[in-house]
């Protein structure tokens, strides 16, 4: 009797266990695993956009997780090499380029055409450095789809500007006049925090390089295809050094963290602060500031009248890893995310970044009390040039660039040596 019971128990156990294995895949259908690096207010924004997707696809369960950027990168690397999720958010340029070259990402060229994204997304985002980058075979294909743009603007202290009778500059002379006026009134003109990173000082350098060299050259320089020994590049770096020497920039930027620079700006000790669009959420969160009342943004005017000023920036987007269990489902998700409804939910209503959807007008941002974003979008729609620079550096070049620029800032090296070292790094790292 006991023996019979044991045999029955063993049989039932075996049947149940094998049933679990057989049906394991079945429970995963209609489920999408997504990892992003949007936290805090930005996480609320993406959840709003995911809500648009879930309304349209009620049978699909979106398993969404959000990690802070440093932890996100480590998790991404670990998962990509072992067991990736269906979909990841990704920065354009360096991050996507590196993983595309390693063969970790799916080619989205066919998806882009099939989803009709040319009619939805601004044309710049399809170019190399944005959606397109070389794959493991060296051929340039689409590996990334944009989600939201972060424009690298100058944030200015509007109340301070108003009290000194300063307005938004339209010429380089007006811009330098603002710098002189602020300095004469004992206010640091531009504050930057670059401790441990290069991105804080790059917007100004990028703007000067574009101003001296033109858009095409600046783009190719970032891609490692032009030489730093060009006299115009040297002129741009000399002007950056002059800004430092004259005192338009804080010379202690390498000892100043990003958040300390933000606070200095917020306390009214600095007139301007260089960062990307997402910086507005820091100003709102830290000081309770209102866009258009306490602060606003502008794109610096052209350095030379004959060279147009593009909007410098980078974008957050989506990539599908090679090991994605359901790439078709991931592709449908991406198509929804770039749609006007999801973009409106994420960027206009929840205030994260600037939309990449060409059917959303600046007036929508005005109605949402985000005049700075309306200005940024308006500026782009008039100039039609979005340019991504430092974001196209290779990871090793970002490292070398950070070291060399901070040595230039702290006076360890002069401009000619910085140029030589940048050129040597370019040859080694691209």
């Amino acid at each position: 009797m006991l023996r019979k019971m044991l045999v029955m128990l063993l049989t039932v156990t075996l049947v149940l266990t094998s049933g679990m294995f057989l049906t394991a895949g079945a429970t995963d259908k209609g489920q999408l695993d997504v990892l992003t690096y949007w936290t805090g207010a930005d996480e609320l924004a993406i959840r709003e956009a995911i809500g648009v997707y879930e309304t349209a696809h009620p049978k699909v369960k979106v398993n969404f997780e959000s990690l802070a950027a440093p932890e996100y990168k480590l998790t991404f690397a670990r998962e990509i090499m072992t067991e990736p999720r269906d979909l990841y958010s990704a920065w354009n340029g360096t991050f996507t380029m590196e993983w595309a070259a390693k063969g970790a990402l799916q080619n989205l060229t066919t998806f882009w055409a099939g989803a009709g994204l040319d009619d939805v997304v601004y044309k710049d985002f399809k170019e190399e450095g944005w959606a397109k980058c070389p794959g493991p075979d060296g051929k340039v294909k689409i590996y990334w789809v944009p989600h939201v743009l972060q424009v690298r603007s100058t944030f200015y202290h509007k109340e301070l500007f108003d009290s000194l009778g300063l307005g938004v500059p339209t010429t380089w002379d007006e811009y330098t006049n603002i710098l002189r006026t602020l300095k004469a009134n004992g206010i640091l003109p531009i504050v930057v925090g670059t401790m441990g990173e290069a991105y804080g000082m790059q917007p100004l350098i990028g703007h000067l390089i574009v101003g001296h060299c033109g858009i095409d050259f600046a783009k190719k320089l970032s891609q490692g295809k032009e030489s730093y020994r060009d006299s115009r590049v040297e002129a741009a770096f000399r002007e950056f050094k002059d800004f430092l020497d004259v005192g338009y920039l804080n010379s202690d930027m390498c000892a100043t963290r990003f958040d300390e620079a933000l606070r200095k700006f917020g306390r009214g000790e600095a007139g301007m602060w260089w960062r990307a669009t997402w910086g507005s959420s820091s100003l709102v969160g830290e000081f309770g500031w209102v866009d258009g009342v306490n602060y606003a943004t502008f794109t610096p005017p052209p350095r030379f009248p004959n060279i147009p000023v593009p909007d410098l920036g980078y974008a957050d987007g989506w990539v599908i890893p090679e090991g994605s269990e359901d790439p078709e489902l991931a592709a449908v998700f991406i198509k929804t995310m770039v749609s006007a409804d999801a973009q409106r939910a994420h960027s206009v209503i929840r205030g994260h970044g600037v939309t990449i959807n060409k059917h959303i007008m600046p007036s929508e941002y005005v109605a949402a009390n985000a005049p700075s974003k309306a200005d940024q979008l308006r500026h782009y729609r008039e100039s039609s040039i979005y340019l991504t620079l430092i974001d196209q550096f290779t990871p090793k070049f970002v490292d070398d660039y950070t070291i060399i620029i901070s040595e230039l800032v702290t006076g360890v090296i002069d401009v000619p040596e910085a140029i030589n070292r940048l050129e040597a790094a370019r040859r080694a790292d691209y």
Partner: protein
Amino acid sequence: MQRTRLIKVLPFLLLPLLVYVAIEVFTIVDMFHLSFQEWKSGVFHYIGLSWYKEIFQDRYVRIATLNTVKWTSISVVWAIIVPFGIALLLNQGLKGENFFKAVFIIPQGIAYTAAGLMWATIYSPDVGILNITLKKLGLGNFARPWLGDPNVAIYCLIFVKIWIRTGFYMMVYLTGLQALPKEVLDAARVDGANAWHRLFHMIIPMMKMIFVIVITLDFIESFKTFDIVFATTRGGPGASTEVLGTRIYKAAFQHWELGYSCAIATVLFLTTMVITAVYLHILMKGKKY
């Protein structure tokens, strides 16, 4: 007799030994294995000694090595002299001895990362208490962007580390001093040996093993420095605070070259092992403890 003892003790050693092999040995072997590989298109490929060749051509690995040696030298010399000096003072039975012990030992309870962030605020050029205090004392000329000055940044970070560890080493030395045979020292005093004689010819030789432990611990810890630098300067300004720990991190998680990172880590591991082994061999020659 020895064999019987070993057989009795072995079962109790087996589990910790298995855990050690699983966690430590396996990880080290895996690191060594990865140092000959490159990850591409979903798989790891063997590339021979390519990463090791790159180490010797990498300018920033050279700078990181020099900075690590500088860090270790200063830290070890400090660990030998200052905590021992404090322990000697505290061993005199002075009033407030427990208070001073607490003052020195409290930093030991702070994680390196937290301490780094705390000191980054202290060193802040605008709101840091160091510069504010210097200005209030009329020493504003000495105020500077401490962690932004490539000439002093690394010394500022080394100070954070020794600030944390001084208390711990002090307690180790104090325990050693309190374990010394008092009769021997009293007899030496009666025989006319002055304080310096007793210190250099009796106390320090009798505490040799304690010094060996402290130096070995501090050497290994200094050589693998990472937390304090990463939490503050991340190797900057320039590469003035770059150490081997941060280079390993950057190779793995910024350049996405896991194999190269493992190669640098392997060289660091082997170097530390060899130096420690040679040092211990020289110091412990002929001794059985």
